[in-house]
Structures are given as C-alpha cells and as structure tokens.
C-alpha cells in the first residue's frame, strides 16, 4: 500500500532526534555543525550565525565535504522543521550517527528573537560567475565578497604580472592596481599575456586595463603610470591589501620591500632566470622580508634580467600563477602561505625545491630594533648596495621595470 506524506513525516519524526531553538542557541560555538537545508533564496533572507548552507537537494553530494566526521554532531534546520527531518534521514542513511533536526525551524528561531545574520549578497550574475568559488567551503559567498572588497597592487604588468593579474581579476579581486610606465613591445608578447599584438606601442597599464575589464567587469583597475621611486612608493602602495612583485630590478624590489614592511602590507615575490624561478611571500613580522633573504643585491653580471639572459616564456607564467595563488590565500586568510619558505622551480627538471627562510634579527628594515627606530623617527641606516650599485638612499631614483619589465 502506498504511503502518504503524513506516513513519511510520522516515520521521520519517530526516527530523528529533534532539538528546540533554545537547545541550539545554548550550544557552545563549534560544538555542532549547524546545517541550513533551505533553498538559496531563503538562505539569502537570513540564517543562523555560523550555519553552513547546503540546500536539501544537494545534501547527499555536499555533506561529506562540509562534515567529514560522521560521528560529530550535526543539527539541520529548514524554515519550519519538516524538510530538515527528511534531510536528517538522508544523513543517517549516509552513516552519520549524531544527527538532529531543529523543530520549528528558522521561523521559530527568528520569532523567539534569537540572533541571525544576513549573508553577503552577490548579484545573480556574480553567483554564476563565481559559482565554482561558492561551491568551495573555504571560499563561499563570504570569501567571494571578501575578494570583491580586496585591493591587489601589481608592480609591473610584465611576465609575472600578466598571469597573476589575469587570475586575480578572474577570481573577482575587486580592485587591481598596476604600476608600470613602459609600453608594450613585440618582444614582450612571448610571455606577457595581458597584452596583444595590436597593442604594441601602447602603455602597458592601459593594455592591462583593457584585458582585465574584458575578462571581468566587476574589477576596478587603477593605473599608476609612473616609476616607483622613493618619493611616491608610500602613496602608491597605500590602501592595498597585498602587493604582487613582478618587477625586474633590485632597486625597485628593495624600495618596495622597505615601504611595504613599514606599511605592513604582504608582498608576494617572484623572480625568474631562463628556466628557473624563485617564489616566496613576505608577510611583515610573521616571516622574513626581502632584505632578510638577500641583504644586498648581486653585481649585475650575476643577475641579468630577462632582456639580457632570456627566459622561457612559460616560467614567469608558472611563477606568476603561483603568486596569484599566494595572493588569494593572503586575501582570504586561508591555508599556509610561503612566508618563511622559498620555493624554487626548475622547468627543465619539472622540479620544485623548498628552502627554509628566517628573519634576520639584525635586519635594518623588519627587526624589532628597526621598527622601534622608525617609530622614533630615526630609521636605521641601510648598508650600501653591493658591487657597482648605488646607496639605498639613492635607490628611489631608479626606474621601475626598465625596457623589459
């Protein structure tokens, strides 16, 4: 004999433990995973603080990702306490041993004056554009909103900056600043994929802006058509949440490092030579800074740029994408960055090597002594640059990028 809805509901009630909104409200934070099984449109109107959203139609597919431990407590709720009962049955079928349904659902929770919050609202178009991010619990709507509210600065729209900026733009980082004063050259196009053949001779900042906005109109592009020098570095980097260093001169790298440490802005660093690349993330005071890693620059013959030494185009491509990955983690506050680790890439071997980095306790920029000295308005003297170079004080007069950026 076919069973009716009433039969099924009765069966579910008999099988599933029910808890009241008061029980759930009294739980210590994190004591149980609270899962909202309503539809997207209902969730968007408001939900329990800290709840995870899995629509009832996706429970089977998504619960294992959200709650890997089948013996941990899971409390489901919907609008009135019925759909959550059926969803709880599904969880039990999947082997979850400690499942409950909140009676009365969100309506009762809200009518009792208990706390609730409204999720970040993304437009329909944004929900579709970023849907693959929204599906990842570590990003989700909140993470996506965070990216949309974030500001990333690219020093150089060249070999490293091109892939990094494209991916951050695609990811929906809401503001992208680009510092470059160079123009697109035909020899750039072997690797600088922000630019195109018909833009040879155009300003790189404008070319980059065009490409980024064609990819994602959510992104505001701020162009800084100027050399990064001591007089403007503080003004240019102000307000950015992360900086992606894709320059190719040591003068600019040191200048940027010193200013970013002083402003407490993370810098994702990469550099390349022929088939090889180096990558790390400098998070001020959590890990070393560029001066801790390389106290002085090498003489020019030991560190030629791409225009002199050449580079396999894909190498800055790979390193730039790894920079984008680091920047996203910094912005989202997830995972472990490369702070304190230097990652080497060798394209000929297809090998990665990791080296341990430490903060230099005597660092003239990021040591405790250096910070105190800056606070007192008497910054520590920075040792002279190496062979054939100028003093740090003069570094600001060097131009960013040079002809190959």
């Amino acid at each position, binding site marked *: 004999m076919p069973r009716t809805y009433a039969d099924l509901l009765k069966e579910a009630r008999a099988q599933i433990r029910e808890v009241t909104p008061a029980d759930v409200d009294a739980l210590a934070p994190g004591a149980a995973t609270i899962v909202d099984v309503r539809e997207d449109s209902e969730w968007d109107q408001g939900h329990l603080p800290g709840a995870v959203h899995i629509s009832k139609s996706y429970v089977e597919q998504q619960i294992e990702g959200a709650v890997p431990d089948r013996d941990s407590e899971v409390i489901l709720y919907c609008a009135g306490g019925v759909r959550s009962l059926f969803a709880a049955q599904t969880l039990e079928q999947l082997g979850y041993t400690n499942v409950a349904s909140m009676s009365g659902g969100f309506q009762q929770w809200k009518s009792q004056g208990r706390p609730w919050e409204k999720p970040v609202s993304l437009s329909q178009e944004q929900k579709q554009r970023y849907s693959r991010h929204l599906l990842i619990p570590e990003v989700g709507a909140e993470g996506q909103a965070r990216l949309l509210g974030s500001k990333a600065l690219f020093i150089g729209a060249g070999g490293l*900056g091109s892939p990094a900026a494209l991916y951050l733009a695609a990811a929906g980082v809401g503001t992208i600043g680009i510092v470059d004063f160079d123009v697109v050259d035909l020899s750039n196009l072997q690797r600088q994929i922000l630019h195109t053949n018909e833009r040879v001779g155009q300003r790189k900042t404008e070319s980059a802006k065009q490409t980024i906005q064609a990819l994602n109109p959510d992104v505001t592009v701020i162009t800084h058509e100027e050399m990064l020098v001591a007089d403007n570095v503080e003004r240019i980097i102000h307000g950015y949440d992360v900086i992606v260093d*894709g320059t190719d001169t040591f003068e600019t790298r040191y200048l940027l490092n010193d200013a970013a440490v002083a402003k407490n802005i993370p810098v994702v660093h990469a*550099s390349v030579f022929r088939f090889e690349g180096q990558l790390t993330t400098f998070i001020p005071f959590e890990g070393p800074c560029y001066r801790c*890693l*390389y106290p002085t620059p090498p*003489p020019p013959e*030991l560190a030629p740029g791409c225009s002199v030494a050449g580079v396999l185009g894909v190498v800055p491509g790979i390193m730039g994408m790894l920079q984008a990955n680091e920047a996203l983690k910094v912005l989202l506050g997830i995972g472990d960055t490369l702070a304190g680790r230097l990652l080497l890439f060798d394209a000929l071997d297809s090998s990665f090597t990791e*080296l*341990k980095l430490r903060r230099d306790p005597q660092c003239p920029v990021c040591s405790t002594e250096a910070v105190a000295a800056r606070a007192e308005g008497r910054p520590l003297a920075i040792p002279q640059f190496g062979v054939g170079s100028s003093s740090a004080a003069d570094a600001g007069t060097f131009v960013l*990028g040079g002809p190959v950026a």
Partner: protein
Amino acid sequence: MSTVKIPAVLRPQVGGNKELELAGSSVGAVVDGLIEQYPGLRGQLLTDDGQLNRFVNVYVNGQDVRYLDGLSTALNDRDEVRLLPAMAGG
C-alpha cells in the same frame, strides 16, 4: 662527498654542470674545493677577506648557513649544498 647545486647563472663557469660532487667536511672546505677547480668563481662567492658574499645564499639541506655555522657548518656525506644568488627577472 656532498652534492653542490650550481645556479644557472654560474653554470658557464663550471663547465655547464648543474651539480658537482665535492669532498669536504665543512661548507668552507667544499667552497674552497670548488674555487680551486674553478678559480673564476672566487669573486662571485667570497669577499676579499674570504667571507661569503652577502648576495649569494648557501643552503645545506634546505637551511641557510647564515643561521647555521656559516662557512664552518659541518657537512656529512651526501649532504646537499645549494648556492643561490638573487634573481632579477620579472
């Protein structure tokens, strides 16, 4: 014997070798052995008074020797010594 990893920028000065096997009970001894074989490297690796240049980092098994014992850092058989200058390219 330790394996010394040579950075791409220095390879032309060591016959194009990517790595070399060198004997020596300390980083200093291995660096001296390297310079003996390839005298052109001296100016790149050491200062006039025989200290490591600040622009070349030396790692033993992934650890910077500046935070170990510098040139005196002891080496065991099959340790990996990596020379690594900063790179300019972007």
